[in-house]
């Protein structure tokens, strides 16, 4: 009995020393749903670069899921070195629990958002309902698919884009914007819990005439499904969706991975990282690459969250928390 315990301890010891000697670094990147393809390529490129510069091999593990759920996992102890989520509100929630500095968004360029996306419409082939802009979504007989903003980060961007459109119309005010989105949600037959679910409802189940979606999701859906079954319509004005990234301070200090984690998020801003983002249909921040991929991303008028709504904490409290504007719309009743 005693002997077997000794053998076990020895085995554990050998394993531990082996792990230290090999100088293998491991990072956990906790991300949201539609970034699978993007980070698969980023990770390969970053690991090659790190190996070339430092001689250590780095393995990056990924965890994907709904943005809010991922943030909760990190709060509850998932040892993420890096978080790359759909909206700043979810990283704010992690910061509120003291896992990273409250001013995390100032630690990297562009509000800690290395790439952006925007909100566009996906319509069926030939655009049979003649959808051109936000105003067309509330015409009689038009059905719109968008996920539930109470449960989906992507849907919150959709909601704010619609609100901003109405606000920017001549004579627009909070009252007219509220009337517009109220009408809009009367045209929504299904409120999926997440962005991928809404894409499936629109594409696979044939529900609705328009899907309001992330541009990268729409481009990906269009490319993967092929057959020109769908067309993308870019509205006259839309929001710049900013999915931010951050290093989780207390976790990297615990793991001793701060240097590599910092290099990893900075790599996203490098020309190589920006190009991978562009290839995966995220709009790069670098003007040079934006120019090179301009044909892929149609120009449109945009506004940012901070232009109209302040920061995410304010937007969340005003629109999406219980008793907020979304609840006041009386969707469904």
């Amino acid at each position: 009995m005693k002997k077997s315990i000794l053998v076990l301890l020895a085995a554990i010891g050998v394993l531990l020393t082996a792990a230290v000697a090999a100088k293998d670094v491991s990072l956990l990147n906790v991300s949201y749903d539609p970034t699978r393809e993007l980070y698969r390529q980023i990770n390969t490129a970053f690991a090659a670069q790190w190996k070339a510069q430092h001689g250590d091999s780095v393995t990056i593990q990924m965890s994907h899921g709904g943005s809010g759920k991922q943030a909760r996992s990190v709060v509850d102890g998932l040892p993420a070195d890096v978080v790359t989520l759909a909206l700043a509100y979810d990283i704010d929630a992690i910061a509120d629990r003291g896992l990273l500095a409250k001013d995390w968004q100032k630690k990297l360029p562009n509000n800690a958002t290395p790439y952006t996306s925007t909100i566009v419409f996906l319509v069926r082939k030939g655009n049979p309902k003649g959808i051109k802009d936000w105003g067309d979504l509330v015409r009689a007989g038009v059905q719109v698919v968008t996920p539930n903003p109470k449960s989906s980060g992507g849907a919150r961007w959709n909601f704010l884009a619609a609100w901003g459109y109405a606000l920017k119309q001549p004579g627009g005010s909070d009252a007219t914007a509220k009337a517009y989105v109220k009408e809009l949600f009367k045209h929504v037959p299904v409120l999926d819990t997440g962005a991928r679910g809404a894409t499936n409802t629109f594409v696979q189940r044939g529900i609705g005439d328009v899907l309001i979606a992330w541009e990268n999701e729409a481009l990906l859906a269009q490319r993967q499904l092929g057959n020109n079954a769908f067309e993308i319509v870019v509205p006259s004005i839309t929001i710049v969706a900013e999915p931010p990234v951050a290093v989780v301070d207390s976790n990297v200090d615990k793991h001793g991975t701060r240097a590599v984690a910092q290099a990893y998020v900075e790599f996203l801003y490098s020309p190589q990282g920006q190009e991978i983002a562009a290839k995966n249909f995220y709009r790069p921040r670098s003007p040079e690459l934006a120019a090179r991929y301009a044909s892929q991303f149609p120009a449109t008028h945009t506004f940012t969250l901070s232009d109209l709504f302040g920061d995410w904490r304010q937007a969340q409290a005003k629109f999406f928390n219980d008793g907020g504007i979304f609840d006041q719309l009386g969707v469904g009743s």
Partner: protein
Amino acid sequence: MRRRVLPGFGISLGYALAYLGLIVLLPLAALAWKASGIGVEGLLRLLSSPRTLAALRLSVVGAVVAALVNAVIGLLVGWVLVRYRFPGRRLFDALVDLPFALPTAVAGIALTTLYAPNGWLGQWLEPLGIKVAYTPLGVFVAMVFVGFPFVVRTLQPVLASLERDVEEAAESLGAQRWQTFFRVILPMLAPALLTGFALALARAVGEYGSVIFIAGNIPMRSEIAPLLIVQKLEQFDYAGAAALGVAMLAISFALLVLVSLLQRWSHRWQERSL
């Protein structure tokens, strides 16, 4: 203490209680503790909101009706599988467990694929004006699906142990067929049937994975109570989510107590009818 056939009463009792405490009571206590953060006033406000009430109503009424349907159909299927011999019987018997074995998300997606307006079944139902996917009816269909095996599996052993001579005796004493069924067979089956009903009900009330795909999730119309919990979590409102969880638990518990009262009453009915 009276001598028992098998030894070890003390240690097995201790183990059973510790296990129950660890597996069942500890998480429930944690839930209640989290929920207490919301306060009595907050709880009342939460539970009296029309949206919460609508979601609870859909989850509870849907589950009760689904369990009733499962009780009737499950009795029929159990009877056929136990009493009749036909080709493919073993295959059908194995199929009953499928809703157990299938990951709930797969079940939800499969049901939605079938019942969506462009699905195999949905395309024929749509012209008749029957919408299943993305309506409360879809929620009900998914609840029937996940609860079905419980009734069949609890009834089968009881059905197998029913002695045919009892039926023959009833017949020879001049009972009509319906009398044999309602006064002889049903009282004997009632306890097991109620257990199956209770299990199917408990499963359906809290079902999330399969229902969420086929429900339209429109507030006040096709939004189930577990989805409200998910939405609370999405706002990092742990206390509100836990409070809703406790409320659902209380409702389920009340229903289960009701069922076990019925069960006791059915035992007496059974004894009287024998």
